[in-house]
């Protein structure tokens, strides 16, 4: 085993420690690096800005705790934006692990902004059968949601009185770490002409670009960076922006790792070839 090989195959636990430090240090000692916004996120922001006050926005919490650190900040930013613009928010949930997160986020944001449940926002809760639920909302919300999360009949909720189906909703934003936004595209946008935007984990973000090009999605908020951009747009710094320093440093570290690893690999291959040649 030559020196390059030894270098390449060091115990990975050393690398783990480096990564933990690269995240923790910038969190404790922030650098305050500037964040630039990108068109897909700006489009979501502009779409919400363009809605008339009083137009309901449907935010679908389609994620569970596994992706909460990534998607929670953007959900909060979107909620704050809608409530500040006096757009009533209807919150639905299409993954079973999600309703608890929706309860937590809506109640906290409402308290902080003095919003009233069932007037400024409403939490409809979780329903099974993703595509069936999305389709049913295009006919009548009451098909899948006879009652909200808190067991109140829909007709007794002031906010829902004038909401029958997608015709009465200005924008749907599906926030998810799965392909559920694709179902919103296929069943709410294509079938009922509903405008749809998506907030997704970075794992999925690159896969959603075809929908942006066709206009099937009006905009896309991707990962924690997307949340940070949104926080910048609404001028309310929170967890997203706070995390960006650490994000930048770890990305740099990983790029350095890739370069170092490949350089060592090339030298190792050369050294091997040379020793094989000399053996002959």
């Amino acid at each position, binding site marked *: 085993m030559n020196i390059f090989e030894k270098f*390449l*195959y060091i115990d*990975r636990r050393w*690398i*783990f420690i480096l*990564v*933990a430090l690269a995240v923790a240090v910038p969190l404790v000692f922030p650098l305050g*690096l*500037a*964040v*630039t916004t*990108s*068109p897909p996120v700006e489009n979501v922001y502009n779409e919400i800005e363009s809605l008339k006050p009083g137009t309901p926005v449907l935010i679908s919490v389609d994620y569970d*705790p*596994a*992706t*909460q*650190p990534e998607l929670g900040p953007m959900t909060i930013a979107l909620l704050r934006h809608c409530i500040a613009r006096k757009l009533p928010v209807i919150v639905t949930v299409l993954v*079973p*692990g999600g*309703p*608890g997160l929706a*309860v*937590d986020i809506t*109640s906290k944001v409402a308290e902080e902004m003095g919003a009233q449940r069932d007037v400024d926002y409403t939490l409809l809760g979780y*329903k*099974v*059968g993703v595509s*069936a639920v999305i*389709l*049913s909302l295009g*006919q009548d919300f009451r*098909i*899948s949601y006879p009652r909200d*999360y*808190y*067991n109140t009949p829909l007709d007794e909720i002031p906010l829902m009185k004038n909401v029958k189906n997608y015709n009465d909703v200005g924008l749907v934003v599906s926030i998810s770490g799965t392909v559920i936004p694709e179902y919103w595209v296929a069943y709410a946008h294509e*079938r009922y002409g509903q405008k749809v935007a998506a907030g997704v984990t970075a794992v999925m973000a*690159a*896969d959603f*670009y*075809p929908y*942006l*090009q066709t206009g099937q999605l009006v905009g896309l908020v*991707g990962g924690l*960076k997307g949340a940070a951009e949104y926080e910048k747009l609404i001028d309310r710094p929170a967890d997203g922006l706070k995390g*960006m320093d650490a994000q*930048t440093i*770890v*990305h*740099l*570290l*990983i*790029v350095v*790792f*890739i370069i*170092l*690893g*490949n350089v060592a*690999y090339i030298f190792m291959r050369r050294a091997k070839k040379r020793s094989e040649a000399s053996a002959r």
Partner: protein
Amino acid sequence: MRRELPLAICFIMGVIMTVQFFIPHRYSQWLFENMLRWLIIVFTFALILGILSLIKLHIQKVQYRRRDWLYSIVALTGLGLSLVTGFMKGPESISEGQPFMTLYNYVQIPMQATMFSLLAFYIASAAFRTFRARTLEATLLLIAAVVVMLGRVSFAAIFKDLSLGFSTWVESWLPGFAEWVLDYPNMAAKRGIMIGIGLGAISTALKIILGIERSWLGGGD
């Protein structure tokens, strides 16, 4: 009865939902709305079935003292806690501030969220030890990855803070270039894949409705 009837039901339901799509008439809407209403209810049972099977598995593990049965007791205890707190106050139990939500917020969320953050460590070590530009293809992949990784974070800002000469160049070009890569070459590839996946899904659905593909029936007669 055991195979023909479920196949027939599957066929009829599939055809109804497909044909309904093309008929805007109110009779068709009425049928559609009722089907959706029913689907949600039946599907709820399907998901509950999954949980019941899981409980059965852990109970059997404890019953027959299979390997790691002690951990199954841990799982069953957690399950019991959730169920008790979830039902003790009727529909009220799931509102904010209730014990059920405390269990969710301080036990389920931390663990589930931490699980996938483990990957951050593995990705870093793989970046160093495994991601190799072995072939031309892998090289292209890594270059695109690096562009997106640096273009989507405040990489350029570091240069600015260090006031290096070429900082403005990096600052103005890199994020735009990353966005271009995502908008055009990436988009083209993803669209190609998407059309393939779409055709695959349609063909699978067709085979199931027409009864050509029957593996969903499971074994037995």
